[in-house]
């Protein structure tokens, strides 16, 4: 099987033909069209938006609005003004905990997160609970790494204010039944916050259909630039929310002793926005739409299937999480007797880039009983030769550690 998109479309991969990049779950490489769009914006339409005193600023404003509309359409958000640009998923979730959270979570209330959350969707809630005197409840996982829906149901009580959960696990690659969880929570009068950082790059996502109250994602994992991300929120909740950061752009009128707030999305986007980031992200969306998200998913499935089979056949390799059909994008594994860091160093000497460590998911690592795992993740520019290089590298590592080649 070949790559879905030729490596030549990605300047970094074209410049480094030896590179086997298997860390797209951390960040995806950038297609030339994204870099060109950013360059073109700075070269032709660059000014501070929303100032409007001259045509150039109007052009910059238009580019920003067009980018928002494009990204909203891609995410299935019909009301584009409810899509807030942030720095990324981490900022999106902190925005929710520090505005909605501070306004709605009080002493004795309960916050539910799952055991598989990335620290970005765990620590902000933990800190909110500590700050407000609320209780953080952790929903456990089933044996195959899925959110345990029975446990979740049992945690939804009279004091539960919010459930924060992942769409796709960054460690196990499990895909959560988002709609089902949103329905359960709604029936219990509980707000839902879904971390879509690992879902949006790999699956067709329609936020409106998922039925969650907040949905967060990052641009850089979906071929967009670093420093731009998204928070989609239900309009009535966003409108009732206090602002987060205050300052320029987000105000309607500033009196000496008080201020009133601008309309959405500006109320939640203080200061000069990251227009170049939004333009780059819109180009990434166009790039992914050109490929088709179903083709992305099919390509990754085929790679996961092959990698799962190839790695399972290596003596001493154990794979965490479900089978290839049930997972998206990532493959976490361990090699007996070889610590993931040592494995990553040995693979790196062969130009194979994988992630090793706790993957910002220490609560999950504790439950897996592993201090760390190795993780290979796939995207549109990977093919079978990358899996061969990974498998060969693991065999070499085993050899270095004194095990026979199998």
């Amino acid at each position: 099987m070949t790559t879905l998109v030729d490596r030549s479309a990605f300047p970094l991969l074209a410049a480094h033909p030896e590179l086997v990049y298997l860390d797209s779950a951390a960040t995806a490489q950038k297609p030339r069209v994204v870099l060109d769009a950013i360059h073109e914006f700075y070269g032709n339409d660059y000014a501070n938006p929303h100032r409007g005193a001259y045509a150039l600023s109007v052009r910059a404003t238009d580019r920003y609005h067009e980018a928002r509309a494009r990204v909203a359409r891609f995410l299935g958000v019909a009301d584009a003004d409810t899509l807030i640009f942030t720095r990324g998923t981490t900022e999106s979730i902190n925005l929710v905990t520090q505005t909605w959270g501070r306004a709605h979570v009080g002493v004795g209330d309960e916050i539910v997160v799952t055991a598989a959350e990335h620290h970005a969707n765990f620590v902000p809630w933990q800190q909110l609970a500590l700050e407000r005197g609320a209780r953080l409840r952790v929903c456990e996982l089933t044996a195959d790494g899925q959110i345990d829906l029975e446990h979740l149901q049992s945690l939804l009580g009279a004091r539960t204010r919010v459930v924060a959960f992942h769409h796709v696990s960054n460690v196990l690659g499990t895909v959560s039944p988002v709609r089902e969880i949103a329905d359960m929570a709604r029936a219990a009068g509980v707000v839902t916050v879904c971390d879509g950082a690992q879902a949006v790059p790999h699956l067709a996502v329609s936020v409106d259909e998922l039925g969650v109250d907040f949905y967060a994602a990052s641009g850089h994992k979906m071929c967009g630039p670093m420093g731009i991300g998204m928070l989609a929120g239900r309009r009535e909740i966003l409108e009732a929310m206090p602002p987060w950061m205050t300052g320029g752009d987000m105000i309607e009128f500033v009196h000496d002793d008080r201020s009133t707030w601008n309309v959405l999305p500006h109320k939640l986007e203080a200061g000069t926005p990251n227009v170049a980031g939004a333009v780059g992200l819109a180009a990434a969306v166009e790039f992914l739409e050109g490929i088709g998200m179903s083709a992305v998913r099919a390509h990754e499935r085929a790679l996961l299937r092959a990698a799962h089979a190839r790695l399972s056949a290596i003596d001493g390799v154990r794979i965490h999480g479900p089978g290839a059909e049930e997972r998206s994008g990532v493959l976490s594994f361990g090699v007996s007797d070889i610590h993931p860091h040592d494995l990553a160093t040995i693979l790196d000497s062969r130009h194979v880039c994988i992630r090793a460590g706790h993957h910002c998911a220490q609560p999950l690592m504790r439950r897996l009983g592993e201090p760390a795992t190795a993780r290979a993740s796939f995207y549109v520019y990977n093919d079978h030769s990358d899996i061969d290089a990974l498998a060969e590298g693991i065999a070499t590592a085993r050899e270095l550690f004194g095990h026979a080649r199998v």
Partner: protein
Amino acid sequence: MPASDATSPSPDPRLQALYQELILDHYRRPRNHGALEHPDAEVEQRNPSCGDIIRLQVAFEGDAVRALRFAGQGCAISQASASMMTQLLQGKSSEEVEQLARRFTAMVHGDAEASRDAALGDLRALAGVSRLPSRHGCALLPWKALAAALARHA
């Protein structure tokens, strides 16, 4: 099965030098692993970027290190570093310990002269780490715990 076959590319020789028998031996059979009954100082040190953890216990006799024990989880480099460190420092005065810690740190940061210093003993086997900046923290983790233990005792 043969240990290697003709079609498989052989491992990078520099890595072979790093993951040599001596280091793997300390990784698999760590010396001074466990706990002291009456430690004078106990420090838990974590590497936040990777989650590795070491608990180091030190017992002193006057100015000298009488015994060291460590426990924890980590890669071959951090475990071998801890194992070799505890072996080398047994019975050394705190001045000698600080001197050796400086030499080892210099070696990890690429000081070629330090890597030839016989005073470092087996620890010289870790000299190859200097070429792997992402692994400096692994080699130095037990030494950070040691510095904290010494500071606590002072």
